[in-house]
């Protein structure tokens, strides 16, 4: 059943460099539709770099260079004619630290839509309610939509950023340690949210919390020093990993 899921994101022999330093080595990886794929691995192994390859965020780094290809729904996203704005609409990203704008909650959610030039008040209202509900924040803020987003707690801010990402209706959501700065209750909410979102989206999440990877993801990829060591069903990785390096990493035994 699982295997019949469609491949949404596929990388072919992707390598990445910062200047002369090669930080990713020939990575082939397929990420499936309506699935959560988790990236785990020690600090500096290249998880964020790999994630940012999927929405071309690395393009802004002068010394960055890549080899190999990234396909989304079969299309090479690094082809000349691909428009970055279109790509960003399709691929949303949530960061480690919630980064709301110093505006109202309402304006934060529709930020991307405003940029796209959408002004229809009714439609905007509808989208705000829908996405805040999806992000499990609606009940907490529905009476304070005009208040500043900066007055929200960290966990609420993060859910707001997720709502903001959802508002432009992407099909893929990338998350780089989205819950690492949150308390257990906010973390549980984000995790539940991720679980629910996968029905409609393809989700890729970087996490340092091993058990979070276990709780939210269907597939797990373990990276080490820029290499993809093991990629498998999450339950296989956490019960019987095949590579000793994976075993040592997830059990906390090194060397």
């Amino acid at each position, binding site marked *: 059943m699982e295997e019949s899921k469609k491949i949404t994101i596929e990388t072919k022999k992707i390598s990445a460099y910062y200047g002369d330093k090669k930080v990713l080595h020939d990575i082939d990886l397929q990420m499936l539709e309506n699935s959560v794929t988790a990236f785990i691995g020690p600090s500096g192994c290249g998880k964020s770099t790999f994630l940012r390859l999927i929405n071309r965020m690395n393009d802004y780094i002068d010394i960055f260079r890549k080899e190999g290809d990234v396909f989304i729904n079969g299309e090479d996203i690094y082809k000349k004619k691909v428009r970055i704005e279109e790509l960003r609409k399709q691929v949303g990203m949530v960061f480690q630290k919630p980064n709301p704008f110093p505006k109202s909650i309402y304006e934060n959610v529709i930020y991307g839509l405003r940029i796209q030039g959408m002004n229809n008040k009714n439609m905007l209202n509808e989208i705000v309610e829908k996405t805040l509900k999806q992000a499990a924040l609606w009940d907490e803020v529905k009476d304070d939509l005009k208040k500043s987003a900066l007055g929200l707690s960290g966990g609420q801010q993060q859910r707001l950023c997720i709502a903001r990402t959802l508002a432009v209706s992407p099909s893929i959501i990338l998350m780089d340690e989205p819950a690492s700065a949150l308390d257990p209750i906010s973390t549980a909410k984000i995790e539940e949210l991720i679980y629910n979102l996968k029905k409609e989206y393809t989700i890729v999440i970087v996490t340092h919390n*091993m*058990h979070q990877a*276990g709780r939210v993801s269907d597939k797990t990829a373990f990276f080490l020093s820029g290499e993809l060591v093991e990629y498998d069903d999450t339950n296989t*990785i*956490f*019960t*019987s*990993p095949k590579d000793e390096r*994976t*075993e040592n990493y*997830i*059990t*906390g*035994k090194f060397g």
Partner: protein
Amino acid sequence: MTNLQKELKVLKESVLEMLKLVLKQLDKASEAFLNMDDALAEEIIHTEKRVNAMELTIDKQCENVFALFNPVASDLRFTISMLKMNSDIERIGDYADGIADYVVALNGPIDAKAVKDARLAEMFEIAYHMLDVVIVSFESDNAVLPRQVFKKDKQLNEINKASSTLIEKMVLDDTQKTREALYLFSTIKKVERIGDHIKNIAEDWIFYMDGEVLKHRKKVPKSTD
């Protein structure tokens, strides 16, 4: 060594201690029944309390490891296998205790020829050997050695199967011997069950070592990819 590794080491030592204690219980049960030794039987019954207490301690240790350390991969398999082994070891202790109860209840000699024909001494020996192999595998982190017990368990099953006709004959030949026959028959059944539990322990140990599930293998064939 991480805190979890220390915790798992302590857990393994507890399980090993219990295994060795139960092996002794089994050995004594064999002697007590074959010699109808009341005093030895009482000793087994007394020690059974310690076995039960150990089971509770190990349960608690496993619970703590799950709750506090969230083990994964081989650590997870290890803790699961200790938890399962724990209950099988306890059951073996129960059976040894049950056999001791028979010795006390029978309170007298038992037909030596019938015991010999039923091959009870041999059964006890096989069971003892099986448990001993498991303990050695456990101590030396060996996943190959415990496979021996599967064949031994089959031997126990065969002896057990053959025993019913013998017991039936014993009763038909001399109805005076019915009580003895029943106790003998029940003891044979218990040793056979002990073999099953040792087999479970071996399977759990191999599951941990190899990450492979042996149980129900016939029902769920492993895909060959």
